[in-house]
């Protein structure tokens, strides 16, 4: 019984990150080459650790250049870490290859900041959303079509027929971001990374996208990682908040606690910087 309980518990952990590091060695500039000096390494991520359970949502806040995107890229195995380890759904990402890597690519998905760059301008919406199913050779043509229709409906692009044959330039930024979300969800992932998914969109329509991400995460019990400069968005989206500063997590805890009772000086600065709605 005890053993079983323990294994259930560890199975609940989707993502476990230990002392993750990514150091970049900038190429020497012309002047540095003349002087013979080495440019100093950039410690973009410098020892990040955390764990995420199934269904949990973690927000990463921090100023520009603090290492948020680099961290996310390592979690998705888009770049290799300089040090440390990522264990995803029981497997270390380091050794993943072949079919295991392919399975990982199915289970972990990314939502980009700029929906215009995320979609191929020559593809119809149908083609963009069906693409992952084709890559993973899933379903018959009829089944695939049905899954695309279902996915678009779930992100509230209705009537679906209206969108299937359109190209990206016919859609607004908000609609495109919904398409991106539909494509990210079509493989039934268990982990979703959203890197500033609404920062390019008009404020009046951001809420609709955020609500859809929230709704889908809850329905699919997704584990989500949400990256933003803006703590008020993270407050709205995430149970847990990590504050990054110069490549490290300086504070990590339940969102409500981090925001109402920040322990680290930098967290306090970040909170103070969030624009307040009340006139001065």
């Amino acid at each position, binding site marked *: 019984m005890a053993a079983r309980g323990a294994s259930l518990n560890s199975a609940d952990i989707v993502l476990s990150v230990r002392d993750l590091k990514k150091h970049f060695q900038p190429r020497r500039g012309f002047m540095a080459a003349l002087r013979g000096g080495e440019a100093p390494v950039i410690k973009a991520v410098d020892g990040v650790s955390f764990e995420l359970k199934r269904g949990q949502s973690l927000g990463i806040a921090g100023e520009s250049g603090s290492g948020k995107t680099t961290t996310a890229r390592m979690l998705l195995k888009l770049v290799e870490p300089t040090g440390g380890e990522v264990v995803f759904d029981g497997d270390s990402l380091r050794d993943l290859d072949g079919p295991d890597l392919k399975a990982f690519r199915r289970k972990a998905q990314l939502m980009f900041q700029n929906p215009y760059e995320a979609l191929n301008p020559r593809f119809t919406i149908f083609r963009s959303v069906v693409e992952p199913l084709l890559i993973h050779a899933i379903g018959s043509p009829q089944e695939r079509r049905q899954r695309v229709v279902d996915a678009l409906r779930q992100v509230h692009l*209705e009537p679906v027929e209206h969108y299937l044959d359109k190209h990206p330039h016919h859609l607004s930024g908000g609609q495109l971001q919904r398409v991106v979300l539909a494509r990210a969800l079509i493989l039934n992932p268990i982990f979703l990374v959203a890197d500033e998914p609404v920062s390019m969109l*008009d*404020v009046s329509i951001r809420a609709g996208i955020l609500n859809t991400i929230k709704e889908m995460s809850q329905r699919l019990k997704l584990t989500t990682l949400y990256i933003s400069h803006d703590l008020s968005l993270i407050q709205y989206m995430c149970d847990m908040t990590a504050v990054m500063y110069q490549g490290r997590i300086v504070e990590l805890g339940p969102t409500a606690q981090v925001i109402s009772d920040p322990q680290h000086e930098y967290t306090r600065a970040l909170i103070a910087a969030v624009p307040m709605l009340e006139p001065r």
Partner: protein
Amino acid sequence: MMATTGRGPLLEVVDLKTYYRTRRGVARAVDGVSFTLAQGQHLGLIGESGSGKTTTGRAIIRVLPRNAEIVGGQILFKGRDLARLPERDMRDLRWREIAMVPQASMGSLDPVYRLGDQMLEVLVNRGGYERSAARDRSKELFGLVGLDAARLDNYPHEFSGGMRQRAVIAMALALDPALIIADEPVTALDVIVQAQVLETLRKLQERLSVSVIMITHDISVVAQTCDSVAVMYAGKIVEQGSVRHIFSAPYHPYTLGLENAYPNLAKPKDTLISIEGFPPDLVDPPEGCRFAARCPFAMEVCLREEPPLVEVASGHFVACHQTDKVDYLRIKSREAETWQRVAPV
């Protein structure tokens, strides 16, 4: 409110119309905009992308693209109508009287010249400064926006985004203009740097008597830096008044909707609600209220008759047929279901 100098407003924009010629026809980007600005006043011009904010700002300083034209209205600045001023006279006015911090202005600095040299160019060539006086003035200006004068020797790429934005603001202040038009001055910056730039602007407000038109899509920026607001929608001002009025007692359904769309760290909301739908095509705008297609309160009359701007409280103007039912609108607009009739954007 501010600057009741008795000398009348610094700027009075009356029924301004600025249109673009496009392949599809004439786009009525600014279509009958009126507002006044007193000396020392900071006006926030807010609205979503494409609502005509930048076009309004560029019309005032007359730096419009070739396919644009001011087709009607007046821009009365210190008694002169800029809409009709010959370009030669307009050139004398730019930088000296009216300066612009253009949208995406971090790219407006020339990468091959030191910031100090770019500042000198404005001071000497536009302002007739002696070189030594110009150098002193440059240092003073950098100090004013919180930059170290020693950094005048730097090139733009040696500055962070926020520092570059402050340098552009310093340059706009160079010849002590009466009016600065700042187009999205913090939009590209991250939260921490944004806060620093806004703080810089706030300090200027306290120390100088310069008037500012602050163009932004972000109402929190307006809340922190302005005394009055004009809300634009599809080429028109739909609501305007003091920041206090607009934030505490908004009337227009679009303004009410915006309030719901913003997360608020201090007072977290259970649900954020967006204003679904699209703004209308400005080449062929609908009759009646331009917000009607997205407005949950639209009635028959809204589709037929354009609502006039009426004064609902002292200095607070609203263009909506249902200002008399504002209590109902305010209650209803807080409910998510109210906004769910329209297709997602």
